[in-house]
Structure formats: C-alpha cells, structure tokens
C-alpha cells in the first residue's frame, strides 16, 4: 500500500482567475461564471467539452448544484469538495485523479468563495453542533502560538522573529502591487506592518491574510492530449494531501514549531516528483501564508530552509521576488487575498502564468527551472490538513 506517482500523466491546458477582493457587486454565481468563462476561453473549449467538474467551496455553497446552477449545466457530473483551506487544491486533485483513471477525458476544477456577504471582517467558519467545550479562540490566536514556541526552541530572539514576520508581509504586499488580480496593490512600509494594531499575541492586523471574494479554475486532460489544446501545457508532477491526526492540541509532545502534516505531504510530493533539493529545483513556490509566522515555519517544513534558520533566510531576501526561490510572487494570501475555496487554484493560476512566461512585469527570473509548488494548510497548528502540488512545464 502506497501513494503512487501520477507524474506526467495529466496536464493542465487552461486556467483562469477572477480578481480577488471585496466584490460587493458580485454574487458567488457571478464569480463562478467569470472564472469558468475565462478558463474556457483560455483553452478554447466550451461547457459541453468538459466531461466532469469538481467544485471547491468552503462555505459558499452546498453540493454540485453550486456550480451546475449558475452555469445551467445539463447532465454533467459535479462534485462539491470541502477540505478547509485545501478545498480548491483538493478539487484539483480529484479532477486529476478522474482523468488519470481514464474515467473522463476532460475535467475542470473550480474553486470559489464569497466571504464578504456576511457582514463580518474576519473569516466566519460554520461549526458542527458541539457540547460547548471547544476552545473558542480565533484563527490568528491559534497561529500566534507559533512565534514564541519557535523562538524558545531555536534560540531566536523576539525582535528577529518579528523582523522576519514583517519581511514576509512587506514582501507579499510588494509582490501584489504589479498583480492586477490582487486584493491589495499597495506597498506597505515595514514600520506600518510592525506597528499595526494587535489582533492576537504579537500578530497585528497586517500579519493576517486578506479576507476576499474570488474564484479560479483549471482544466485538466491526459498528458498525451495536452498539445491538442495548448502549446504550453503544465504537467502534474505530484499531488499530496494529509489530514492530520488533529491531536496536537491535546498532545504534550507537540511543540508548535512545525507542521507535521506539511512535512509528511512534502516528503510524499517530493518523492512523487523526484525532487531532492526543492530550494534549487523549484522555480517558485506558492505557499499558504495565512499569517506571517506560518510562512516562516513553512520554509523549514517545505525543505527550503534548514531547521532553525528560516528567519535568517527570510531576512536575507532568499524568498523575495528576485531571491533564489521566489515565494508567493503573486502576493500570496497576504495581498492577493484569501477566498478560502479559491486559493489553491489561484496558486495554480500563478504557476500557469509564471512557468509559461506570461506573468508580465512580475515574471520571475527562475522560470526556466520549470517546476512550481503550491501548498495549502487548513485548520490550526497541530490540527490541520495540508496539500502540496507540484506542476512542471516539461515532461520527464
């Protein structure tokens, strides 16, 4: 029993993404129609050419009708997927599996979220009925536990960790400026970031990702069919998903300095793709920067930094747009915005642009490495799901 690599068996032949932001003038239906239409146009296909759909949404719809209704699809299979912040990526994963299995020729994965209709500024998560014993902290509070634990474990002083957090936010905001689809397109000074009003622990407002509406989609086909649709397909190299044991919050051996679920998914994904030195082999990485400390720890869990040295690497600019591995060169969750169910597919959209050399003024210099990673993390430290996907511009 093992996960088997599907490397180079499935290809992405079209991708689309709406602008992310506070779309008070658009419904979830509008966002879905816009993303799907753009994606079809990109690939020259029509609704009727798609054999099956996977529709990822965290809280904005129930069932496959979320997609079939606005598109008025007739007689098509649509599956609604939900896996917290890995929702869009898991829709993609299921679409890829369907094509790889031979069950369908052409599949579409769609991710969409409408968060700004509820009247609250943060993310509001539905919860199953409980007995009132669930620890009622906010998401930033859960992630604010990482910094102090990491500092104590690795002997990093609080100022250095704060500077690294600030650098992550500053970098991702800077990356969002030239991105026409990003929610926030303003450079934010490091002083403003470091002094933003506290939300939880030492996390300020500007350490948190943007709450946004948006949708994104991709179309996948068998790799051998890819050139029928595009000259520059991306090939799926690896798909890894881990739903953790969720025991971190009640396990005294968990120390809040790492995401074991990410490490497990990374090991699986790198083995599938045959990657041994991700920092040198990847052209770019789109990672789940829900809060600034998350991105710092992910650099270690994804194997981009040695354990204990992520702050130094972040501060050295290694993951900046012109660094040796650009991370979140589209702005990330931080400035592109985080419409939960759409975010994984938004990351793939950026890989699609960058590896095909179509990212315009934010085109990275490392694109010729030909491999890109997307990563999601849903839940809280010690209690999360994690997805890692790797796509490449070349076979082999």
């Amino acid at each position: 029993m093992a996960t088997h690599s599907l490397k180079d068996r499935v290809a992405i032949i079209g991708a689309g993404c709406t602008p992310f932001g506070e779309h008070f003038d658009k419904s979830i239906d509008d966002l879905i129609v816009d993303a799907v239409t753009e994606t079809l146009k990109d690939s020259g296909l029509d609704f009727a050419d798609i054999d099956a759909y996977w529709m990822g949404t965290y809280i904005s719809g129930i069932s496959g009708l979320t997609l079939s209704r606005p598109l008025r699809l007739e007689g098509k299979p649509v599956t609604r997927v939900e896996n917290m912040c890995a929702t869009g990526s898991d829709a993609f994963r299921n679409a890829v599996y369907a094509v790889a299995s031979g069950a369908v020729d052409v599949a579409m994965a769609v991710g969409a979220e409408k968060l700004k209709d509820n009247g609250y500024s943060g993310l509001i998560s539905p919860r199953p009925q409980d007995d009132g014993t669930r620890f009622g902290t906010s998401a930033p509070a859960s992630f604010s536990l990482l910094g102090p634990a990491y500092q104590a474990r690795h002997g990093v002083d609080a100022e250095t960790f704060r500077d690294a957090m600030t650098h992550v936010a500053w970098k991702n905001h800077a990356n969002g400026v030239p991105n026409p689809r990003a929610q926030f397109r303003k450079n934010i000074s490091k002083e403003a970031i470091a002094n933003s009003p506290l939300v939880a622990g030492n996390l300020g407002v500007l350490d948190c990702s943007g709450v946004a509406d948006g949708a994104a989609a991709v179309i996948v086909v068998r790799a051998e069919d890819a050139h029928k649709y595009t000259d520059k397909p991306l090939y799926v190299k690896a798909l890894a998903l881990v739903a953790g044991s969720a025991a971190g919050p009640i396990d005294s051996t968990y120390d809040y300095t790492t995401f074991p679920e990410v490490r497990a998914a990374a090991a699986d994904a790198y083995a599938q793709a045959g990657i041994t030195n991700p920092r040198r082999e990847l052209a770019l990485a789109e990672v789940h920067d829900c809060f600034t400390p998350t991105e710092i720890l992910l650099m270690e869990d994804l194997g981009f930094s040695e354990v204990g040295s992520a702050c130094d690497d972040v501060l050295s600019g290694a993951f900046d747009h012109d660094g040796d591995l650009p991370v979140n060169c589209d702005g990330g969750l931080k400035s592109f915005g985080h419409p939960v169910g759409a975010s994984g597919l938004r990351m793939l959209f950026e890989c699609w642009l960058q590896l095909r050399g179509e990212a315009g003024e934010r085109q990275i210099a490392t694109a010729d490495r030909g491999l890109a990673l997307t990563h999601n993390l849903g839940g809280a430290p010690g209690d999360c799901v994690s997805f890692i996907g790797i796509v490449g511009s070349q076979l082999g």
Partner: protein
Amino acid sequence: MTTDKSVALTRFSAYVPKYRVSRAQIGALVGQSGRGKRAIANFDEDSTTMAVEAAAPIVADGTQPDSLWFATTSPAYVDKVNATAVHAALGLPSETAAYDLGANFRSGFASILAASRSGGLAVMADVREGKAGGPDDKDSADLAAAFSFAPDDGDPAATVLATASRSAEFLDRWRLPGSMTGTTWEERFGQGVYGGLGDAVVRDVLERAEVALSDVAAVVVTSPNARAARQYAAGLQKRVGGARSSSDLLDLLGNSGTAQFGVELVDQLERASAGDLVLAVSLADGADALLLRVGERSASASLPVRQQLEQVIEVDYAKYLLWRGRFAGESARRPDPTRPSSPFASRNVDFKFGLQGGRCRKCGTVQFPRPRVCLSCKAMDDFDDVSTAGRTATVATYTIDRLAFTASPPLVGAVLDLEGGGRLQCELTDVDANSIAVGNVVQMTFRLINTVEGIRNYFWKARPADAVATTEES
C-alpha cells in the same frame, strides 16, 4: 433538636473571589459615600461555579457525601436543579442525591441542617446585586462555602452538639421572583424582631447541649438584615465576654445571602482551637442556631478565609456593571456563539463537567476527553478513566486573543500540560493578561463560558494556583 452525637462535621471550605469594587465608587454614582470594598465574582462565575469552587477542595481527598444540598438566592436556573451541575463538576457518583434549596437567606442554614442529618455535603453560594449605586450593590458580597458531614469517627473537624429553630412570618426583606433587586422594610423593625428570635434559639441550643453561654469561644451571626446581624453578634460577644465574631467580614467583603453564614462559620472554625465551642446563629425569617465543638482536625480544606482576603484584584464599578450585564458593552464583531447541544453535553458530561479523561492502558498516554483511539499508540477503546481533581497544570504557551468572543475582552488562551499527564487548551481567568509567563502553575476552575439562548455553557478554565495552604500545621 438535640443532634445524634454520632454526626460530625468532617471538612469545610470557603471561597472568596479575588475581585473587589470600591464602595465609594458605587456610592458616588448616586451621590453617596462608601467605605472599603465589596467582594465580587468574576464575569465568568455564577452561584453554581462558585459552589464548585468551594466544594471541590472538600471532595478532593475522596470524600463521598451521601447527598448534596445547594443553597443560593441567585440560582443559575429555576425549574431545573443547579445542584446536579455542582454534583457533576465534583465527579460525584450518580447515586448521590443532589438538591437545591429555595432561593432565600435561610436556606444556607437549611443546607447544613439537611447535610448534617444525612452525612451529606452542604454548599452555599451567592452572587448578590442591587440597584446601581444602592445599598445592595454596595454592601453585598459574592461568596461560597461548603461543609461535609459524616458519622463521627472520633476525630472530626467539629461535632454538632445541638441545633434550634424558630420560624416567624414577617416582612423584613423580600424580592419578587425574576427581579434582580430586593426591598427592605425599615431595618429597625427587623432588628427588633430578630433580637427576640435570636434569644429564643440561643437559649434552646445551649439548654439542649447543656452548656453555658460563657463557655462559647466564638459566635457567628448572619442575617439578610446586616444591621440586625451586627447588633446581635455584638450583644452575644458582650454577654459571653470576649468571644470571637466574624462580623467584620460584612465590612471586608459584604453580605452574601446564603453563603454569609457558611463563610463566617468557616472563618471561625479556622480560627478556633480544639475544644472550642462555636455558636452560629442565622436570623432569617425566624432564627436558627447551631452549636459546634471544634475537634483536633479543624483545618480548612481550602486556603483560609483570612488568607483569601489578601488576594485582591480591584475592578472599576463600570466594569463590574458590564460584567453583570447591566448595560451592553461593545463585543467582538463576530457572530454570537452557538448554543451547546444538550444530548452532546450529556454524552460528554464526564469531560465537560467532570474534566475526566482517559489513560491508555497500552502506552500510558493521558488524553482529554477519553478518546476511542489513542493519539500515541493507536490502541482502541482501551483506557482507564483519569480524574484531574485537585491537579495543577503548567502553561506550555499562551496567547492574548483580541478577536475571540468573550464578555470581558481580551480572551487569554493557554496550552496547559497537566500534572500527571495530558494537555488541554483552555482560557485563563482571574489573571492579569500582562503577568502570564510560560511555566506558570495554574489550577483548573469550573466557569461559565457563555450563555446562549438561555443555556449556561459551563466548562473549565485555569486560574493562577493558590499559594500552598499551610496544611502541615493542622
């Protein structure tokens, strides 16, 4: 009645919340003056949680009372019994009967009478308030106390020598059901009536025990009419010639309904020497007297009252009023919490109320609540129950959450490693958010998390551990 000589008071305990409000501040609201401070419960406490706080030290040594009698004038629920929540939080077996007494001052004494006759546990707790700026808001207190009784093993905390009662119908103090504020007739009227009733029960109880008033070492007198209590206590002290009294607690803390009798009695038991006689009188719609002879093992199960008095966190009157919901405060702009499910809570009562977990029989890992599958070795359905009663915990890490829903922002969330194994995430309470550090020792405390759709959601938080009580001396 003359009590059966075989009945003995075995353990006792009092709970004084740390928070205080200045009476000058309260009075100033309506142009009045005030001296000293009154004791108030935290925002997440009610009579039920305070009853647990008082009674937990008593059952921590494995004491299993035959019955539980809960007295309060401020019940968390009516129609529904509150003693069952206390019973569940204390981890008592379901065979133990648990009853609430009526919402009146006299039921404090009644709980002791009932418990003393059945080898039971008497618990009294009250959260008392009144009209803003008025005497009830100023001179009341939020306190709790508990006493356990059992057959006399020859070495009790105290022996019940006799009790005596008189019942009398007159209006001194009253409150309509559902109303927060009560009404008092001109105090001098009640003062006079209570004087006569007190004399009658004191005479009876001394006769029944065949002792003289001059043999009494300490007196306790409590009443809804604080003036009557003070005056009658002072009169008894004078007649005895220097007996101790706890009436100063009315100034130091305030008057706490059913719990006043309990807390003053605990205070006197703590201060007594072996062989002392303690005469305790409750003047409430009649009069009740209890005469105790203090034994060799008269040590409080909790931190002594006079030590608890020294742990003070002062709170502005405005914050107090906010805590009690007298006006609406700005809260986190988040949806209201959802109400807990009754069947879910019922299935999980051992954890939600009793804070019990499981220890894996294969690998020994302690985990909360008791799971089906071990988080460490994956063994299935193979756990021993683990109780956390009386255990401390250490703060592994914590955060101050300014977004979370709480009646008193900001919420302090902590990750705790429990003494004896196991980890929990929970809120910290009774704590200054700026004074917490990793490694702090805390103890678990049963609190009201929130109230949603009329459902009072109880669960455990942690508070700074008490300074170690001087148990060696007892």
